[in-house]
């Protein structure tokens, strides 16, 4: 597949060269050439074309951009794309398998853990990191784990219930 773009080489200075990076996203290996200043969130949304990761604020507060890098939940708006060179990125699109939703996704639907859906991908990935580490969290543990993800619609109560539902299902599945 060939990518075509405008040739600005006559106009654009070459003092800030692009970098070639290799990374994997949701299990697929990718190659990219990026400006160092490109934010990871933009690599995911505009480069790879996965728009489930959202941009909400400009001060690293809201967490709508949360993804997992090497299994750790981080805010992708505050990481440079070049920093995932050699790393594994998981976005919301990587939660489900071809045939099944992840229990966390099921939990959010069962317990009405979303309304507008904008904060939801970030919430689910923060929850995933929690459940990977602590399969039997208390309500307090859940509230603490998602305290870096803001929601305006739900009041959080059903989000907590959704995560606890998922925890119970994951424990039952062994």
């Amino acid at each position, binding site marked *: 597949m060939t990518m075509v773009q405008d040739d600005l080489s006559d106009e654009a200075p070459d003092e800030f060269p692009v970098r070639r990076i290799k990374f994997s996203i949701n299990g697929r290996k990718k190659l990219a050439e990026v400006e160092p200043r490109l934010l990871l969130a933009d690599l995911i949304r505009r480069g790879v074309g996965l728009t489930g990761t959202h941009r909400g604020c400009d*001060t690293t507060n809201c967490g709508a951009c949360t993804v997992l890098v090497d299994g750790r939940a981080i805010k992708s708006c505050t990481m440079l794309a070049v920093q995932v060179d050699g790393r594994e990125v998981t976005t919301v699109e990587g939660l489900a398998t071809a045939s099944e939703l992840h229990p966390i996704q099921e939990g959010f639907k069962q317990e009405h853990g979303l309304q507008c859906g904008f904060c939801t991908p970030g919430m689910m990935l923060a929850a995933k990191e929690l459940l990977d580490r602590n399969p039997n969290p208390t309500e307090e543990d859940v*509230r603490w784990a998602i305290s870096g993800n803001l929601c305006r619609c739900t009041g959080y109560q059903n989000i907590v219930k959704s995560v606890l539902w998922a925890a119970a299902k994951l424990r039952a599945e062994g």
Partner: protein
Amino acid sequence: MTTTADASRALDEIKIGGLGSSRKRVEDDRFIRGKGNYTDDVVLPGMLHMEILRSPLPHARIKSIDASRAWALPGVRLVLTGEMMATRNLAWMPTLSYDTQAVLATDKVRFQGQEVACVIADDPYIAKDACELIDVDYEPLPVIVNPWQGLEPDAPVIRDDKVNQTDNVVYNWEVGDRAGTDRAFERADVVSKLELHYPRSHPSPIECCGSVADFNRATSKLTVYMTTQAPHIIRAAVAMVAEIPEQMIRIISPDIGGGFGNKVPIYPGYVCSILASILLERPVKWIEDKTGNLISTGFARDVYLKGEMALRRDGKILGFRMHTDADHGAFFADAQPSKFKIGLMHSTFAAYDVPVAHLTARGVYTNKAPGGVAYRCSFRVTEAMFFQERMMQAAADDLGMDQAAFRRMNFVADDDFPHRTPLGFLTDSGQYAKCLDVGLKAIDYENFKVEQAEARKRGRLLGLGISTMTEPLGAGNSREYDILGIKMFDSAELKVHMTGKAILRTGAKTQGQGHETTWAQIIAHELGLPADDVTVEEGDTDTAPFGMGTYASRSTPVAGAAVAMVARKIRAKARKLAAHLLEVSEEDIEWELGRFYVRSAPQRGVSIQECAMAAYSNMPDGMEPGLENTAYYDPPNLTWPFAVYIVTVEVDPETGVWDVLKMVAVDDCGVRINPMIVEGQIMGGLTEAYAMASMQFITFDADGNCVGSNYMDYLLPSAWETPGFELHSEVVTPCPHHPIGAKGIGECAAVGGPAAFVNAVMDALGETGVRNIDMPVLPDRVWEALTYRRDVSGFPPVRQD
């Protein structure tokens, strides 16, 4: 003879997802997969990116703008300034309140963050770089950060662009019976007074505003994807401003990441992106950043109250007066019904049986963003109910009466509906005292009072706050309500296909309220079609019937009613088809859920699906084929849900920090279409109430700098601070004039909630004599009130060393 019961084959309404079913949400399927389609997810071939340059100064003359360095940056396609817009008569645009608003500043900037220029480039990063290369020469002017500064005799006139504007007053307005109210005050045993400020807040959905404008020169059609809660209003406005015929404009509101009123107004960014697309003949995407959203888009509240209540010694309210001063920012751009300058502020005290009242209101221009009416409220009803419950709290204290008893004795009685309020509203129904009983029991009221007294002896400050209110939803009837002259009806179009599956489109626009799930439930209720068989679409003006959108909790009362009405039109036609299929006359046909049958032979019947098939294949002579219809609903009146919110708190006297011990909500919103979704709406509203009461506000320093233009300063509570909520739904008083008895719920908790939290903290401070701490009731304000035994106000400018 068989009884109807024996032969009944009515469907189980809950099983098919009808009214009262907590059906799981249809929209979830795409959101949990990350497959929502929000405006920033829209990518069109050849799309360019727009960034706005904003003014760093709150009030300044523009001496010159030099964009030459921006034009020279590789990848920049267009730079727009106010001067360029003016040549096309687009530098100013009309607002929804019959004022004008700058699109890009020409002569002056009038608030910090105002749009001055915009750059369209190949990539958003380049567009941002180019904005930094635009040189603007400003000449600073004196700044106005509150209405009192604006009303000083020597204050600079902010709107010197308006021909007859000699001061900073936007309007004066009044309603009620001045003479009668004066007489009530003369007769009063006790007069209770309260002054406070409801601070500037911002709806701040997580998703910012944005648009992707796509003008196709080949077809002359303009398509705009945008974050709007009211796509048809936008189409009408764009048609006016851009002078393009309406059928050549397609507004598509895709998935919206929260609205809360922030996505109703028309913003300069939309207009610039549309013009840029027309000029460049390529799609142009504009997505604002959070700072742009907080500093320049439709804010909420910022109203000052002077309230007085005339009271009889036994606690009966004889009358009340209110004067409100609204800080409107630099342009009067409220999206509200045109007849009401102060929105529905005069719905205040509607829950109480008050014989007479008088309200005066004034609006003032200041150097701040335009707006005022947004944020999960019907047009200033949040202010109305907050003022009401804060005044009620003060009045009960002044009388030495119990807070619950004082409210109860003044409630409108259950048999007194419809009830005319002293300021001109007609409330429809309610069981107020019963709701209060439920709430008091749930919070264990009597026990709490005992606990509170015991704790006080040990130096611990516990407090309990009550807020009770009824508020108007579902604006509104065409006699009184219009926006820009367009009446506020709403619409639903239903097409039942031959296999009995259906598609429903309405003029509303969901932003998380779950319309795709709930409207289908109304169809299931009216027609017996399983909700799963009904697809719901909203938001595309090419396909949706004309409606005024979703805000002010108007969807269930108005669009929901239209959904019921169109279903009934369909059912009426299906009845004729059934008669034809059953070979009887229509008078012999009865209906049960999902089925028409012969009254005298109930086992003979046809399903609604069979009628649908017949509409295309077996019509009676003279009947038009098809089973489709549209309904436009002009609500006969507003709807009036009622709520009781009770909060208990503990205040740490050494630090001023307060924690919520328990929060109880009793909501009577009539018939609940989907109880799960209704509860979700209440909890969302309570969170916003908690946020406004505890930490969330926008303020300004003495130089006009906005404090609260990003999430470091504009504080939204996380899951850690937000309390849990106990919700009650025992009391259901159907709306007498709504087709399915529903009243709506979206904003109730945001309207009634804040006063419950504030009243609780005031109660905890009860022994200090403090009457008011302005929201947000921050720890430092509580500490100051406690330590110095004085009221604490919070209006700008913020104190600084």
